[in-house]
């Protein structure tokens, strides 16, 4: 079937207001929803805290051993926590029809998707980054490495949010997409995990952290520009039921 928006109504679209209106409107909407359903922001944090506590009990309380695994543990848990928050990213909008309205918006879907991703990042990843120092202290990560850990988390989580959003959009129309989402998205997280953990362990070892952080920035740039297109395509597919 060929479906196209014909030139019929160019006369109507004369008065565009502010092109970024869609992005800001979508961001504000999702940010308000995230604030209102606060449990969706705190659950990933609780999960993060509880599981961080398990490691000293499981492996050993000695600071040296904990410090060695601290970057890896924090980063792996940040990825797992992001999976929890991704589950509900599109599920609610899909069920109450908002996703359809996004697809049918006069403004390009790309803008709304970027707005939604930014809101998801602020609601899901920022609390993690704010909570990470406490987890780092709990795992006796050397203090000089803390700033690098935060930098790597800040640079890495946009990529995690964007790639996760692609997986979430692909599995939104499936009832129980949880495990499938993890299987689809985890292999794509590997580069972020590698560069994130090595940036922090470089800092622990006192080496220069410019390399891995630069790579994280490259990945963030790539995913922020490319992923919204994939997410838009996936959302259109989900709505075509």
């Amino acid at each position, binding site marked *: 079937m060929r479906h196209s928006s*014909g030139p019929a109504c*160019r006369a109507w679209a004369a008065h565009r207001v502010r092109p970024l*209106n869609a992005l800001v409107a*979508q961001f504000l909407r999702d940010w*308000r929803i995230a604030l209102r359903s606060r449990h969706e922001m705190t659950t990933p944090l609780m999960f993060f805290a509880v599981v961080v506590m398990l490691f000293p009990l499981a492996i050993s309380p000695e600071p040296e051993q904990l410090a060695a695994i601290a970057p890896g543990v924090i980063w792996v848990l940040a990825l797992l926590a992001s999976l929890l928050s991704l589950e509900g990213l599109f599920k609610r909008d899909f069920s*109450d029809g908002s996703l359809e*309205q996004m697809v049918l*918006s006069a403004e390009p879907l790309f803008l709304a998707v970027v707005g939604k991703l930014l809101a998801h990042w602020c609601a899901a990843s920022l609390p993690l980054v704010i909570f990470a120092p406490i987890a780092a202290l709990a795992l006796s990560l050397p203090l000089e490495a803390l700033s690098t850990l935060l930098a790597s988390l800040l640079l890495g989580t946009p990529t995690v949010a964007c790639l996760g959003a692609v997986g979430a959009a692909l599995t939104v129309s499936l009832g129980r997409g949880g495990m499938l989402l993890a299987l689809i998205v985890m292999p794509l997280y590997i580069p972020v995990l590698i560069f994130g953990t090595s940036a922090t362990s470089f800092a622990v070892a006192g080496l220069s952290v410019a390399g891995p952080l630069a790579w994280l920035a490259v990945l963030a740039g790539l995913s922020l520009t490319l992923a919204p297109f994939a997410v838009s395509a996936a959302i259109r597919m989900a709505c075509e039921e």
Partner: protein
Amino acid sequence: MSELSTPSNPRVLSSMPLCRAIGLRCERGGRELFSDLSFTLDRGVMLELRGPNGSGKSTLLRALAGLYPDVDGEIDTCDLAYFGHRGGLSPTLTVAENLAWFSGLAGTTADDVPGLLRRVGVPYPNRPLSELSAGQQRRVGLARLMMTGERKPLWLLDEPLTALDSAGEALVGELIDEHLACGGGVVCATHQDLPVVPGLRIELGH
């Protein structure tokens, strides 16, 4: 709402048709819903889709909206607003926030929201949507249609009269009349009779 074209100053509009469908054919679950369906919707005309449940009315509407690709044939439409069973409003937000979001998506400004809400009979901009009744939520959906009417000349309405009282049905009639007067077009799938006389009528599923 000044930019919105109101009945008092319908602007001169090109005569291009709003929606053209050629040779539409759809099969669902092995059963043929409709075949070789063609029509052209010009400005100021309402197309009414009639037919029993499961005759493909909603499927045709979703196909026109581009939300259902499994339809053979050619569809050419302009920007459109889809008013389906699922209201597309999020319950945790207030009415005003929902409308602000829609105006952002449609790229228009929504300055006179209280006036709009009074018009559709739900004058509580700051009340969360979850506290409103189903009929009131449908009315907020109608407010959404009115607000984006300027950018989206074609309205696709899927049984707009459900959950609406008699005053609501009259409201729907008024809105459709206004929209048609401003040079918009409406495709409406319905069971009850609409207070508006349809320019075109298609029977499905016989």
